[in-house]
């Protein structure tokens, strides 16, 4: 479902022509209101996060007694909240959940991307009967909400004897990612000029070597784009993890731990603030580092279920 056919990055492809001094002046005169609205929106979007961030560094008693804005009159600073929330001997600890998040996310990103690469290659570059019908079917599966699948899937996992391990989460995230992954990677593969593949075929390359030597290097941006999507999706997911991992800290990821903490210690803001930031840190870092690819993937269009 592509919004624009060609991928566009945040930076415009051509540098805009230099605006004349008069143009600049006119713009500046007409836009104090525009600037004001923009600043107000930017502040509204930033202050809530900032308030919680400040609170995570204030001592427990201060967080309970006064608002975070008083920090600037009377700065008090501590790392105790982070220590408490990571210390695994503490009952409110998120340490094990944090580890689980990595163990869950890495395979749940690698598996669907690999599978979708193969499937997308078959759909894009191999002719076989029923190809178009099958592709439309996979594409259409994107609209199935995952809620519809959870309980029967849970039963299948119990029957298979793998309930309560990491496997149901790895498998479920992989399954749910496949329709979108196949669709996106297929679109990217189709954009590669067929002449490149023909040339390789004439040279006697088979499907496997064409895939690895010709396509894979060209697909790197697409893989990065989908990889970030899937990483954020899995890391930030609550529903799949709650259903298949339960609440304990053997398997459940940090988002579940955080949701539990919010449920049981809903007013312990010194812990909630530090816990929330630990959970935010990893996806935000990935996001900032690979923003360019993420935007490209976004613009290639998605209706993730």
């Amino acid at each position, binding site marked *: 479902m592509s919004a624009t056919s060609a991928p566009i990055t945040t930076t415009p492809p051509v540098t805009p022509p230099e605006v004349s001094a008069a143009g600049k002046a006119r713009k500046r005169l007409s836009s104090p209101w525009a600037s004001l609205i923009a600043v107000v929106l930017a502040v509204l979007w930033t202050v809530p996060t900032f308030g919680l961030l400040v609170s995570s560094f204030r001592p427990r008693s201060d967080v309970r007694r006064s608002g975070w804005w008083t920090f600037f009159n009377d700065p008090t600073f501590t790392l105790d909240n982070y220590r408490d929330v990571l210390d695994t001997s503490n009952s409110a600890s998120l340490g094990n959940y944090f580890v689980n998040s990595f163990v869950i996310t890495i395979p749940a990103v690698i598996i669907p991307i690999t599978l979708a690469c193969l499937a997308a290659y078959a759909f894009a570059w191999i002719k076989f009967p029923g190809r178009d019908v099958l592709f439309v079917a996979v594409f259409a599966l994107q609209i199935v909400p995952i809620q519809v699948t959870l309980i029967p899937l849970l039963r299948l996992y119990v029957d298979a004897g793998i309930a309560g391990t990491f496997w149901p989460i790895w498998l479920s995230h992989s399954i749910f990612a496949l329709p979108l992954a196949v669709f996106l990677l297929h679109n990217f593969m189709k954009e590669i000029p067929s002449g490149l593949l023909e040339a390789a075929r004439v040279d006697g390359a088979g499907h*496997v070597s064409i895939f690895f030597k010709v396509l894979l290097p060209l697909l790197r941006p697409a893989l990065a784009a989908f990889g970030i999507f899937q990483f954020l999706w899995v890391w*930030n997911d609550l529903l799949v993890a709650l259903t298949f991992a339960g609440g304990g800290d053997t398997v459940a990821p940090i988002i579940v731990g955080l949701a539990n903490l919010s449920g049981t210690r809903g007013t312990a803001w010194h812990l909630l603030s530090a816990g929330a930031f630990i959970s935010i840190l990893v996806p935000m870092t990935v996001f900032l580092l690979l923003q360019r690819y993420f935007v490209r993937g976004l613009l290639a269009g998605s209706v993730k279920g």
Partner: protein
Amino acid sequence: MGALFSVAESTPAKFAQMLAAILLFAAVMGLILFFAGRVTGRRSDRIVAFAYLAPTMLMLAVGLIYPGLRTIYQSFFDAAGKAFIGLGNYQTIFTDDGQLTVLRNTVLWVVVTPFVATAVGLLYAILVDKARLESVAKALIFLPMSISFVAASIIWKFVYEFRPDQGNIKQIGLLNQVLVWLGASPRQWLVDSPLNTLLLIVVMIWIQAGFAMTVLSAAIKAIPDDIVEAARLDGVTAFGMFRFVTLPSIRPTVVVVLTTIGIATLKVFDIVRTMTGGQFQTSVVANEFYSQSFRSDNQGLGAALAVLLFVLVIPIVVYNVRQLRAAEAR
């Protein structure tokens, strides 16, 4: 092999299991590629295609299609999943008082979120377009997209936090403190319906506006310069420019953004669960599905709610596809 599929307790054991699982997966993929590479002959293409598609198709059939059909079937059965009750569960959804509140809230979410988030995103994209520090300004709105719904809910719950208004107790939630500064008395924001639902919707708007802004900003930048220049030479005002040049040019993108946010909103349950747990008449279909299926053990009603989600998504997707077709035909 036993350790590969059992519960890993310690951190090293978890990572070892993860590594083993990845290696197992790599080995399976390696086998498929190895055999696909050796196939020759007239029908070789078909065999390779089959080998490449088989794992994906198998997973989709077992993990999406079968469970989906199974849930539809289950939605015609009672709480224990034993007795056939026809459309009874659906009747409950559309007649029971509690369920009607759930439907009302869901409509509120799906109508308000996409339009407000898109409007804010579009406004901001236009305001910061070609401004100094454009990328920094965009990043501020953009960043909440990387935050989980749970963490975002905690961030906003802290904004709405209430302390009883007595003696020397001070407010720690920003919203109530602003009220106090203005001379009003603080209130329990998350208790009064339907205002509380709107306050939960704010969290979703806060997350989705960045998505809208990013996609719309790219669409605005893709408008050909000569159209903008021609309009400017004609002396079109700033609002006229938006109304007659910008908006018509980006209309297909606006539709995609609206529908994408609409679908995402329909399925969100994390925000409701974290902020209120569905109490104080804030539940939505996606949250009610979870409560009925896993808390109240009403399998039939849970299944019917899941099916309802599915049914509600379809018209939005159909509209989206139609609009795209129309845009492509032009």
